[in-house]
């Protein structure tokens, strides 16, 4: 039943010879990679149990009883310390079992997680504690948890690197269909719970809850490690293959999972609002992904289309401040908003006939500025200027308003849950649009234009209309999202659509992975959840975005979730992996 295509190197084989920086150290460690990895795992566990902070910080006690003394509560570890414990134990187990394929690679993933968690918490404590004393020795107390765990993580990564990183194994298990369905159900349920956990972790950021940001980031860091390890084991790829085999089933289950999120711990009004906002930006990001990811047209003013959709909807909502005093049904409003945004999209897209690349980016940038300035100055009285258009009525069906809470028997769903359901359906529809377009004559034409515009023209593609169509469709999708946005937030103001928002959307697409649906959704989620969690860091928000983007571009240029093509395009640009992988790691690769 189990077949692995890749052979795993026997554990007893002499270690690989390393070159480059630290090559000598790695070669020396190579024969002892297993004990080294176990030592790293043990250090991570020790770090989880040691105290982390020497004194109570000004903002209040650090989460997870990090100020407690050694072994006060041996089984009471929770939060980031629990994550470290799990990562450490997992690393030891994997390191100690030589039969696990690609175990060095898995341990490297776990090591990355340990390093990230300990570095993050350690740095946070150091900064808010006002110096290194906070994580070493001060006020007569010692706290070496952060340092022990960090060293443990580094040792794990060193040990893994010295053992030689095996190629990722490929699993070709075929189970009976019902087992696979069950497995997919479990996987998606776990994903749902994880999403709820990530969303709510740390709670709502703000003055009363100073550690919301770090708890959230720490969970993310631990998940990154776990994800890297799972990915290294090849299991993630296998689950992907299985879900591809049962595509329709997976899509339905995922949709259902998204719809039952209000029943989890995330089912409060606040998180529903956050989730709905993410949905709006995810839908917009998918639209942008058509323009940027597929057609390769850099659009720096894209959020203007979201704004156009929102202002059109606001003016047709019957709000007191709107210029047009009529109330149009919501579904019709959505269509009108989308059409108007699409028309503007086509107008903005028309310069693409003449300008390319950087010049096009400047044209779109200018368009975004024109829109914001016009809205700010209330041109035509349609935008309310600095007063915005407030009090947009909630969407309703008869007497029921989308903003009401729902009570079914003993189950009470928070207010805003209907908006959440609606946005999930909208995002699903936008995804369908994207996927269908991508796999069509039109989608291929876009990609061809992105790859080589002259060659595309020589293949009979009318590049001009096709590029304008990309702008038009992208803007239409943003218009839909904008109409929704107007009713959901109740206020439409020009400053929701500034250049910064365009850049954030673009970052979401690049961060998540250009040309992929999950990438855009993931990117939008990350970039729009972070500000909620890091309220106290709102001044540094852009700095953090910038650093994150630079890191992503350095270590994973294809984005978190890579398009199949882009992955291959950029795969051999990762010098580290290519250098250390055994020959034949890329069996299908034929070098030109």
């Amino acid at each position, binding site marked *: 039943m189990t077949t692995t295509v890749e052979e795993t190197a026997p554990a007893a084989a002499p270690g690989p010879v390393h070159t480059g920086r630290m090559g000598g150290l790695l070669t020396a460690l190579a024969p002892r990679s297993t004990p080294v990895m176990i030592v790293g795992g043990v250090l991570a566990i020790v770090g989880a149990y040691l105290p982390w902070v020497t004194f109570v910080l000004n903002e209040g006690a650090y989460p997870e009883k990090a100020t407690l003394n050694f072994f006060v509560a041996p089984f009471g570890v929770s939060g980031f310390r629990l994550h470290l414990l799990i990562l450490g134990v997992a690393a030891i187990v994997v390191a100690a079992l030589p039969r696990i394929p690609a175990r060095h690679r898995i341990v490297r993933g776990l090591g990355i997680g340990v390093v990230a968690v300990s570095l993050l918490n350690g740095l946070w404590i150091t900064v808010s504690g006002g110096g290194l004393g906070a994580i070493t020795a001060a006020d007569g107390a010692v706290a070496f948890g952060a340092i022990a765990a960090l060293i443990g993580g580094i040792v794990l990564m060193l040990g893994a690197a010295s053992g030689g990183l095996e190629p990722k194994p490929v699993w070709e298990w075929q189970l009976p269909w019902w087992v696979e369905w069950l497995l997919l159900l479990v996987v998606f349920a776990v994903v749902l719970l994880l999403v709820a956990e990530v969303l709510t972790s740390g709670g709502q950021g703000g003055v009363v809850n100073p550690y919301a940001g770090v708890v959230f980031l720490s969970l993310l860091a631990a998940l990154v490690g776990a994800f890297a390890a799972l990915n290294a084991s090849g299991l993630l790829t296998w689950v992907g293959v299985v879900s591809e085999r049962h595509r329709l089933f997976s899509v339905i289950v995922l949709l259902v999972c998204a719809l039952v999120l209000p029943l989890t711990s995330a089912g409060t009004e606040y998180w529903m609002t956050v989730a709905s906002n993410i949905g709006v930006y995810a839908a917009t990001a998918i639209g942008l992904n058509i323009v940027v990811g597929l057609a390769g047209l850099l659009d720096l003013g894209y959020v203007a289309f979201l704004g156009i959709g929102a202002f059109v909807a606001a003016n047709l909502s019957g709000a007191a401040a709107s210029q047009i005093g009529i109330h149009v049904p919501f579904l019709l409003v959505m269509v009108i908003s989308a059409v108007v945004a699409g028309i503007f999209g086509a107008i903005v897209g028309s310069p693409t006939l003449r300008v390319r690349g950087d010049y096009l980016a400047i044209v779109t940038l200018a368009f975004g500025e024109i829109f914001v300035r016009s809205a700010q100055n209330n041109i035509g009285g349609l935008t309310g200027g600095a007063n915005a258009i407030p009090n947009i009525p909630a969407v309703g069906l008869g007497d029921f308003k989308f903003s009401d809470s729902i009570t079914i028997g003993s189950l009470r769903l928070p207010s805003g849950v209907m908006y959440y359901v609606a946005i999930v359906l909208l995002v699903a529809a936008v995804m369908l649009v994207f996927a269908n377009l991508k796999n*069509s004559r*039109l989608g291929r034409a876009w*990609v*061809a234009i992105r790859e080589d515009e002259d*060659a*595309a023209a020589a*293949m009979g593609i009318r590049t001009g209309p096709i590029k304008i169509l990309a702008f038009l469709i992208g803007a239409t999708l943003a218009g839909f999202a904008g109409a929704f946005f107007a009713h959901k937030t109740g206020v439409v103001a020009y400053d929701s659509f500034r250049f910064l928002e365009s850049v954030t959307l673009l970052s979401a697409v690049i961060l998540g992975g250009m040309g992929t649906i999950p990438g855009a959704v993931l990117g939008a989620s990350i970039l729009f959840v972070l500000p909620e969690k890091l309220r106290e860091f709102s001044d540094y928000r852009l700095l953090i975005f910038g650093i994150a983007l630079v890191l992503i571009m350095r270590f994973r240029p294809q984005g978190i979730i890579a398009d199949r*093509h882009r992955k291959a395009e950029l795969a051999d640009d990762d010098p580290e992996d290519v250098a250390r992988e055994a020959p034949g790691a890329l069996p299908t690769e*034929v070098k*030109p």
Partner: protein
Amino acid sequence: MSERASEPSAQEDQGETLPELATPPEEVVAELAEDMRDAPTTATGARGPILESAGVSMVFGGLRALNEVTFSLKEGEIIGLIGPNGAGKTTFFNCLTGLYTPTSGAVTLRGRPMPQDPARVTEAGVARTFQNIRLFPSMTATENVLVGRHVRMKQGPISSLLHGPRFRRSEAEALDRAEKLLAFVGLSRFSDELARNLPYGDQRRLEIARALATDPSVLLLDEPTAGMNAQETEATRQLIFAIRDLGVSVVVIEHDTKFIFTLCDRVLVLVQGELLVEGSPDEVRGDPRVVEAYLGAPPDEVEAQLQTGAGPASDPAAGPASDPAASPASDAVESES
């Protein structure tokens, strides 16, 4: 490339080591020919001129790149275009395909003026390849060919969105054609490989397959054998004959005179933007003006060089000696195989 370079270049070996380099499988050719016959652009069977240029001149600033070039391509003909570097061959190509608008003169396709837009030129039935390979590097071989089908598919945004039955039928047909074309050029095994990962010679073949996907009646090949070894060059020659047999007229730019003389029904020599000589390979080969202009050396010396360069493979029988207009599908093919 390295994989291919290490193969023995002797032609006898190619059947065993690289079966796909041999001539395209007969059933594929038959099916393809049938498919392409349905296309509105492909050959009508008449032997009349299909692509003509009359007094085409192209001036860039003060540089006269083309001067009054007049030629005509008949259906089912293979024409070679040779000339030293900078003679205006590629400029002429670009004029033919609408990339450049000639300063004066006219290009006509089946008597109608050639549209001045690359996409419309392709739609009208003229496909081309590029001197520097210009595939879509991050698309698979199949997807590259599917892009070539774009112009013959009619699915608009709405049906692309809805994926209805007609859409799916059209996609299936396109995919089927792409598979046949890949088999035709011998790249079936690479159908899911990204274009950028293909060996160099295969990238050139893929470019040809992509151009053929547009159902052309005229195919313009810009240095199809540049950088190829003898074995690959021979395979390309067979491929071009097979393309001609599909009813596609071919214009080839090439530096390799031996290749041109054994391939083409007629050869045009461009020198400094002027059409110097036009005639059968034998006539051109023997023309002292060509020898002098093309190689820029005293005729006697170079003529000898050219003759030996033509080499033992291209014995006089290889080039069609008869009037190409009367018999475009000359017996050159038969005598070669």
